[in-house]
């Protein structure tokens, strides 16, 4: 039988002004199992805590109730105090008689009666508390980074700098991501390649960073400290170890295809590296279009390769590796503007997007840095930029602001003028959002120094007349409708989540919002964490971010990951669910409701019948202790430590045992 001690706090006068603490302590003496009660001015103070420890020894107490403030304030304090008194820290309950009693009631008698009930509730519960042990799990000291854009690259460099091994899994043949496609970056107009390429090289040369390009994460199991990850390494048909990137193969390949990296404005071969500075500098064979793979003809690349690196027989390979933490850096994709009939359903060749324009600006890009009309390759002199295409559009696009279009549009208008001072730039905008450092100044320069014409209003229709684009917009500031005939239209399309984001979220058990963007654990105080311990977010997979913000979150996420890895072992909260396999009938309703994938099907041999049967099994490190599984379990085979059925029943009963007695 538990020997309960009840300690009632005055909290100065915070409690004692409305609650008769002496009476509470007095009446609590009569509760089942209570052997000692007292009141004290400040229980949480050092003398208060000393008092508890002293009384435990003196009265041989085995359970503690402190009636004071909310457990969100001092539960931890008193658990430690209980432990210091030589008891299991979970042999403690807090009775909240301040926030939920003395502060919300005026009538002293009523408040005192309620406080008595609250203490009774806690005493009923604490008597049935189980001793819980915090368990520890070892930590695999490696970090997986999913995505090799600027975000993943920065995170890898930071993790490696802290001395931990990391693996980047990148879907494309090269790391570099979207940033590798850009020409210059706002507001400083640094050349994107000049600042990105050294980082790519650093990643490639680091002993602590392993690169799996042309690879995808297929399956994630396990939990913080012990993630098991299956990675599919797609067949490149080129041996990475033999190839030295001399380029003979792709120079000789006869197949010419539109280059995805160049937004289909330029060409690539069937064996190719996406761009000259690719890391690793190893080509990949496009199996869909390779003549040898499809028709058993050609085979030139194999013939000309001086290192015998071409291997047509190579197959996909699935490897499994272990990690302690995962950083998600999968980035974004662009909204498809072809849903807008009024903008021509994507049918007009000269209606392009910011990324197309970026490739055209790039001097090593498909047009050699010339701004042309894709329809006929002639120089584009009059360019209309349209912002918020798919952003801030609840009806057909995304409700949110994509956050960086204002800036890159301004940059593109500026670069257009730099490339050709004769060119005209018109920018249709709704609001200019230039809240970064030196951003507003930059936009001002574009308008003032470079003379880009800013028109405040959304474009309603683009159509073609005699080979020119007619842009029908509006300038709400002057109150006029405006029609511009343009050579080229550049749409600032929304940044959106990747189409397979949900699949990844489900694999990692991380939540996502209605826009399929991954959700952080707390929007302010845990911005790079997720609710799944050990999984962190960085970059635009979480919300549209520009390069500085992306790099900042990458560093933040890597610090968080390294923090985890700096521990040899990690504690897990013992207040989690457990299954009584004797009772479990294996319906696995619990598995359906578990938001963390913590429940698995396990085959056991029945103790009585000696036959095999299925039961539910809980992975302690994945369980977060929500209790949804308890409710779903009909025979009551699952219980939740810290909130057991017995405890809750005890609480209900304590409220009704003497119903009306006090009155």
């Amino acid at each position, binding site marked *: 039988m538990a020997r309960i001690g009840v300690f009632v706090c005055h909290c100065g006068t915070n409690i004692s002004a409305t609650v008769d603490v002496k009476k509470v302590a007095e009446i609590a003496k009569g509760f089942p199992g209570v052997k000692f009660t007292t009141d004290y001015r400040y229980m949480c103070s050092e003398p208060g805590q000393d008092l508890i420890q002293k009384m435990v020894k003196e009265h041989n107490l085995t359970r503690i109730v402190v009636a004071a403030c*909310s*457990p*969100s304030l001092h539960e931890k304090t008193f658990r430690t105090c209980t432990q210091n008194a030589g008891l299991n820290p979970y042999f403690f309950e807090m009775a*909240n008689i*301040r*926030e*939920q*009693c003395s*502060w*919300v*009631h*005026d*009538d002293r008698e*009523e*408040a005192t*009666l*309620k406080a008595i*009930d*609250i203490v009774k*509730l806690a005493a009923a519960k604490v008597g049935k508390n189980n001793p819980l042990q915090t368990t520890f799990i070892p930590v695999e000291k490696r970090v997986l980074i999913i995505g090799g854009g600027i975000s993943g690259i920065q995170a890898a460099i930071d993790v490696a700098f802290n001395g931990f091994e990391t693996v980047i899994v990148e879907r494309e043949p090269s790391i570099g991501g979207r940033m590798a496609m850009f020409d210059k970056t706002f507001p400083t107009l640094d050349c994107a390649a000049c600042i990105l390429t050294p980082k790519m090289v650093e990643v490639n040369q680091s002993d602590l960073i392993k690169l799996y390009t042309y690879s995808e994460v297929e399956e994630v199991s396990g939990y913080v400290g012990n993630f098991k990850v299956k990675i599919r390494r797609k067949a490149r048909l080129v041996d990475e170890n033999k190839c030295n990137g001399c380029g003979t193969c792709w120079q000789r390949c006869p197949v010419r295809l539109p280059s995805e990296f160049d937004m289909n404005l330029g060409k690539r071969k069937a064996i190719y590296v996406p761009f000259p500075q690719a890391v690793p500098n190893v080509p990949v064979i496009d199996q869909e279009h390779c003549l040898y793979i499809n028709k058993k003809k050609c085979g030139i690349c194999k013939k000309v390769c001086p290192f015998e690196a071409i291997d047509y027989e190579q197959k996909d390979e699935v490897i499994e590796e272990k990690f302690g933490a995962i950083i998600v850096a999968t980035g974004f994709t662009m909204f498809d503007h072809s849903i807008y009939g009024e903008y021509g359903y994507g049918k007009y060749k000269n209606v392009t997007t910011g990324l197309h324009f970026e490739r055209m600006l790039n001097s090593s890009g498909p047009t050699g840095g010339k701004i042309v009309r894709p329809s006929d390759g002639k120089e584009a002199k009059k360019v209309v930029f349209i912002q918020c295409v798919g952003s801030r559009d609840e009806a057909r696009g995304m409700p949110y602001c994509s956050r960086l279009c204002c800036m890159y549009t301004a940059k593109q208008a500026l670069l257009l003028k730099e490339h050709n001072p004769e060119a005209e730039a018109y920018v249709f905008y709704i609001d200019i959002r230039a809240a970064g450092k030196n951003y507003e100044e930059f936009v001002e320069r574009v308008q003032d120094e470079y003379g880009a014409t800013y028109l405040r209003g959304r474009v309603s229709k683009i159509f073609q007349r005699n080979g020119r684009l007619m842009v029908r917009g509006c300038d709400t500031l002057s109150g006029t409708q405006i029609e511009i005939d343009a050579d080229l239209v550049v749409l600032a399309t929304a940044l959106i989540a990747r189409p397979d984001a949900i699949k990844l979220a489900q694999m990692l058990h991380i*939540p996502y919002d209605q826009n399929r963007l991954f959700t952080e654990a707390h929007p302010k105080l845990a911005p790079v964490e997720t*609710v799944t311990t050990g999984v962190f977010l960085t970059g635009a997979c979480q919300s549209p971010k520009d390069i500085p913000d992306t790099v900042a979150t990458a560093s933040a996420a890597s610090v968080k990951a390294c923090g985890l890895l700096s521990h040899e072992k990690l504690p897990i909260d013992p*207040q989690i669910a457990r299954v009584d396999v004797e009772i479990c009938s294996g319906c696995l309703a619990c598995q359906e*409701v578990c*938001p*963390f994938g913590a429940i698995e099907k396990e085959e056991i041999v029945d103790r009585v019948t000696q036959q095999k049967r299925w039961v539910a099994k809980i992975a302690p490190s994945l369980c*977060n*202790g*929500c*209790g*949804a599984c*308890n*409710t*779903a379990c009909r025979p009551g085979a699952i219980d*939740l430590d*810290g*909130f057991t*059925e017995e405890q*809750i*029943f005890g*609480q*209900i*009963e304590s*409220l*009704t045992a003497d*119903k*009306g007695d006090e*009155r």
Partner: protein
Amino acid sequence: MKDNRSIKERDLGSKPAREKVKIAAFLCKWCSYAGADLAGGSRKKYPPNVIVIRTPCSARTNPLFVWKSLEKGLDGVLVSGCHPGECHYSEGNYHTRRNFAVFRKLLEYIGIEPERFHMSWVSAAEGDKWAEVVKDVVKVVESAGPNTYFSKKKEDNG
């Protein structure tokens, strides 16, 4: 909350003073419990009839706890959790919502006054709302009076 609205519209203030009702409230610790704490922090006053049982998530509250509370003689029960989409465990409150959508129908069908069971979404920021919810719930439960389901026949002690 169709049933309760009709009750609210009645003038409860004119009812004669009767025995004080006791109500158990199952609150999730992340939103509603924190909301109740906030109500305290901002000194919102409300009637003392509601005693809180803290749970990790509203999904921990088995509908049958509600029945056990009524069976054991409590006059009313309130279950409260995070607003949909704000669950700390991402989807627990969606399960709670379904469970109770069904269970309240069972209670009503079996003959339990709808006035005795209540549910609310109260976030950690909604101290005011918590106070309002308690005031409302107490009023409505009072209108149903004390629980007498089994009091006339005392044939077991279960």
